[in-house]
């Protein structure tokens, strides 16, 4: 659709802008202020400049947390995006099963995040959980509170359980937008199932996938409540992701300045990666 140039459209965006700016820009500025000072108490503070940044960038604990985080987030994307697309392709397109499948598929999305942790805790424990008991009884050593690999996989499985449905819903909607004529033409052209996916369905999913990838990336990069409840970051620090590290720093140790400096680094990482995703996917669908 060719849009009309009209800068008065800004007035329509203004409410959103003010509302979001109020809750986003002011806290962001404050965090920047924190990050360049040493705050002993609300009335005693010193300007320290780039000191915290230098310190945080060289902190090995944070570096390893960042490494874990990146591996986790990319695993999440690598599993959930293809799986979500696949399930979306399996969804029924007409009849009462549409509504039923949608309700069932959407259910995990509406579980409060800490309850997700609880559910998986109860499900995966070696003594009372269905998963834990089953795995142990067929001879697989599984205890997510002790084995770090087991813990890591449990967190990953939990995230897949919780969030794949978001990708499914978005892709399902994207798929429904494809006119029947495309499928008919493909049948007549003798296109294989894979060719139909590659040349008809995937290009039409680009828009929803942009959003799905961005949302999943950002949210998984900031995962906090679920692993906190499930593993508490352990065993050791195998499932301590960035958010948790920050929370410990900011809340438990009340080291707000260092935490602020680190938050900003963290923010820049998400911003850069998100921008790259956004640009790649939106540009790929143009020209």
């Amino acid at each position: 659709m060719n849009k009309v140039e009209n800068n008065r459209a800004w007035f329509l965006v203004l409410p959103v802008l003010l509302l979001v700016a109020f809750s986003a820009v002011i806290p962001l500025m404050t965090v920047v202020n924190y990050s360049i000072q040493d705050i002993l108490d609300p009335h005693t503070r010193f300007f320290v400049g780039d000191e915290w940044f230098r310190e945080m960038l060289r902190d090995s604990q944070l570096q390893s947390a960042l490494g874990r985080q990146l591996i986790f987030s990319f695993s999440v994307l690598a599993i959930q995006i293809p799986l979500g697309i696949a399930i979306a392709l399996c969804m029924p397109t007409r009849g009462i099963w549409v509504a039923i499948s949608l309700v069932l598929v959407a259910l995990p999305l509406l579980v409060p995040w800490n309850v997700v942790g609880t559910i998986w805790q109860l499900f995966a424990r070696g003594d009372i959980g269905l998963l834990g008991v089953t795995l142990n009884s067929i001879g697989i050593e599984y205890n997510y509170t002790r084995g770090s690999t087991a813990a890591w996989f449990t967190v990953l499985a939990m995230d897949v359980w919780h969030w794949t449905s978001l990708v499914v819903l978005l892709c399902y909607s994207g798929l429904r937008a494809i006119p029947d004529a495309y499928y008919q033409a493909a049948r007549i052209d003798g296109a294989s199932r894979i060719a139909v996916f590659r040349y008809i369905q995937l290009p039409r999913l680009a828009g929803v996938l942009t959003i799905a990838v961005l949302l999943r990336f950002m949210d998984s990069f900031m995962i906090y409540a679920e692993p906190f409840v499930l593993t508490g970051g352990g065993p050791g620090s195998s499932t301590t992701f960035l958010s948790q590290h920050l929370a410990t720093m900011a809340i438990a140790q009340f080291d707000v300045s260092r935490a602020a400096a680190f938050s900003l680094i963290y923010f820049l990482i998400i911003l850069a990666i998100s921008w790259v995703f956004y640009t790649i996917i939106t540009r790929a669908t143009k020209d």
Partner: protein
Amino acid sequence: MDWMVWTLPSALFFTTIALILVGMTVWEVVQPSTFRRGLLPLKTTRGDRLFIALLSSAWFHLGWLGLTDQPVWYMTIFCVIWLAAVLRWG
């Protein structure tokens, strides 16, 4: 406002950003920009180039702080030049 623990450098920083945004907007109103292909490997508008320049400047600063012990000002001066260069040729 006290709880926001303002400092002069950060205040200057945000003022600069705000001024740049206002400036860009005025520029855009006076002379609308179009997509073009410069040294950057993608077609950009002026606003895209500003964003790319700012984000990369932030990263340059982080790299500088993480890898050297030199004062941060060197990098800042470089980034001002970088910003202008990206806007001009990017």
